[in-house]
């Protein structure tokens, strides 16, 4: 491994791998072999699915495999594992934990979910109340988590729990890898305004976890969770879309194809939204160019904020444009979709679902705080929750 990895050498490696492994063969076997060959995530260490290569070279590998018709690891389905659990385990896990968890995570044999948010701790994530108490050599977990997507499919969950309520809220947290098949874990679908249940509530009642499932030191949970959250924000951003590739395209097509619906006032509204959508798209193009050049910037936060506001407005105008026709909904069944799809259903669904875009993955309010303080350097507000034991905080 003394030689530096280059795009060229990677292509050669993939071709060599493909010579020995039939992309049309057994899927899991192929994926495991790809992992073992260091061609899963090339920026991960050797032995853990990678080659210690620069992250920007990953697309070279993915494109080569895709061109060969190789199976993928259904990356959207295992997004939480890939985007949040894996980097956290890599950074904070023991050798045994990395060895045990990363391979089945990447091959999608084991789906992961995130057990952070609670009914009483949403924006204030460090305020979680779920307790973890020492129990022999392990831990006993009691509490309730909420907004857990994929919990009903997940084998493992990344869990933030309070191990010491008598110290400040950040100091009393510990991070665990929660066995979702353990007795005492109950997953209930959580229905949302769209009628669907994308998310779950997870009740943890006397759940026993061995100490080998603790990630990082006792009391270091917040530091570990920050790794997770940082990666969550990087992960959001989505793929590069062509012009009118997103929700604005639906509105633009309706405008074009249904001249009888048009009105002058909505014309300017559609144009304003088109301008904003295209501006946001170009912002994404520029951000991806920066990332590819190894110059990451804080613009991802801008994109999430703008995306949430924009999808809400575009879908709102779409309903207005359609008039009474736009008030017809497809169904209120409590479906359990695994992927967010703002295009697949009708205008009312889009409009309702988009309301979640400014809440999930950090509310727009929390994100504005972060931008103001970390990007702009504005001073923090006076805190009411520092220097106070968690148990004494008003709730």
């Amino acid at each position, binding site marked *: 491994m003394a030689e530096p990895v280059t795009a060229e050498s990677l292509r050669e490696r993939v071709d060599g791998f493909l010579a020995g492994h039939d992309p049309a063969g057994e899927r899991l076997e192929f994926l495991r072999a790809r992992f073992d060959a260091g061609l899963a995530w090339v920026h991960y260490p050797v032995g853990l699915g990678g080659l210690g290569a620069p992250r920007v070279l990953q697309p070279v590998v993915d494109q080569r495999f895709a061109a060969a018709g190789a199976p993928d690891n259904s990356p959207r389905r295992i997004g939480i594992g890939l985007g949040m659990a894996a980097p956290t385990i890599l950074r904070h896990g023991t050798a045994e934990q990395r060895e045990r968890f990363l391979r089945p995570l990447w091959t999608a044999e084991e789906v992961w979910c995130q057990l952070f948010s609670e009914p009483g701790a949403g924006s204030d994530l460090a305020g979680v109340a779920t307790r973890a108490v020492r129990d022999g050599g392990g831990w006993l977990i009691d509490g309730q988590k909420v907004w857990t997507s994929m919990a009903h499919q997940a084998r493992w969950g990344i869990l933030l729990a309070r191990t010491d309520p008598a110290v400040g809220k950040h100091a009393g947290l510990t991070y665990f890898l929660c066995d979702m098949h353990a007795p005492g874990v109950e997953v209930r679908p959580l229905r949302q305004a769209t009628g669907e249940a994308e998310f779950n509530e997870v009740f943890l009642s006397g759940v026993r976890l061995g100490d080998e499932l603790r990630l990082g030191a006792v009391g270091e949970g917040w530091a570990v969770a920050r790794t997770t959250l940082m990666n969550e924000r990087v992960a959001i951003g989505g793929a590069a879309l062509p012009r009118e590739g997103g929700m604005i395209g639906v509105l633009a097509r309706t405008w074009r194809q249904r001249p009888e619906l048009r009105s002058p006032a*909505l014309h300017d509204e559609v144009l304003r939204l088109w301008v904003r959508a295209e501006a946001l798209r170009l912002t994404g193009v520029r951000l991806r160019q920066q990332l590819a050049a190894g110059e990451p910037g804080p613009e991802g936060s801008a994109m999430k904020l703008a995306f949430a506001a924009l999808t809400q407005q575009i879908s709102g105008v779409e309903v207005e444009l359609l*008039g009474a026709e736009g008030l017809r909904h497809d169904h209120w069944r409590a479906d359990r979709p695994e992927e967010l799809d703002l295009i697949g259903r009708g205008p009312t669904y889009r409009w309702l679902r988009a309301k979640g875009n400014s*809440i999930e993955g950090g509310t727009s309010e929390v994100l504005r705080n972060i931008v103001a303080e970390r990007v702009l350097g504005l001073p923090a507000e006076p805190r009411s929750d520092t220097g106070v034991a968690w148990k004494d905080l008003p709730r």
Partner: protein
Amino acid sequence: MTLDLRYTEEQEQLRDSVRAMLADHAGWARVLRVAESPEPDDADLWRLLSVETGLAALAVPEHLGGAGATLAETAVVLEELGRAAAPVPYLGTAVAAQLLLHLGESDLLRELAGGGIVAPALPFDVGPAGRRLPDVEVSTAGDGSPLLNGTISGVADALRATVLIVPAGGALFAVDAEAPGLRRTAVVSLDETRPLCDLAMWNAPARLLAAGDRATSALDSALVAGAVLLASEQFGLAQWCLDTTVEHLRTRYQFGRPVGSFQALKHRLADLWVELVQARAVARYAVACAASGDPDARLAASLAQAHNGPLAVRAAEECVQMHGGIGFTWEHPAHLYLKRAKSASVAYGTAAHHRAALAALADLAPA
């Protein structure tokens, strides 16, 4: 300007009693159950509002069984129904009452005052400004009585109506809801507290109510009344959203302090309140004009819709957002208000349609 935009003492008393009644009989959990059910509305609540209290026929004269009040009192009830997102066909019935009053249709007014539901058979987005009426054809039966043929999509408050008032061929007809050849199909609606339906008529027997100018003028006055009354409902809905959000933020703690102490939220709610103060004024002005036959009524109606339609949506959106995750769940009432506000913003003409109407009414010609 001599119109009084305040509430009278009697109106305040009316509001108090309606609010108390709805608190008992239209709590949001019940509203949600009705919305989830296959029933189009809350039949028990409707009985309470119509037969038992006469609130559904406030504007019907006393000698026809009504309360002899005016649109202004009807609007106060609608503010409260908006606050409750109550699943009852009140708005359509009130609009029908205006139309029937205009025509002096005593029999139908008496039926309405007795608890019957009379519904205007109009697409929900047709108003004094907005889309055109659908084409319904009029033919003649062997006995010379009229028959109607055609479809009308997206009609509100009609699923349990006993009588439909159908505009067709420039005239107005009454169609018995049980008439042969009339079919109502429930629509899966964004707002299940006021679901829409589609009407189809194949040689449906009808009774002529009015034709020519008389029909046009009755329909116009009904559509203006609809826009005016809806503005009060929207104000009430928006006020609920503000009040509920304020209450939530006073009691929800994050970061060791009440969420309502965070300045960014406070400022947004202050701005929303500023809009609400104005929403009440425009709604009351529209009601005062319509109730007194003021020549400014049409402008006032479009003004009220142009202002209050978007405001109610914004209030409901802020309500969802400021509740955070909980406001996005099915088991919290916010989504009922969100959906009703959006549905109402299209009803009786969208804000864009009303601004276009104002361009003509206020002499601000297009480019």
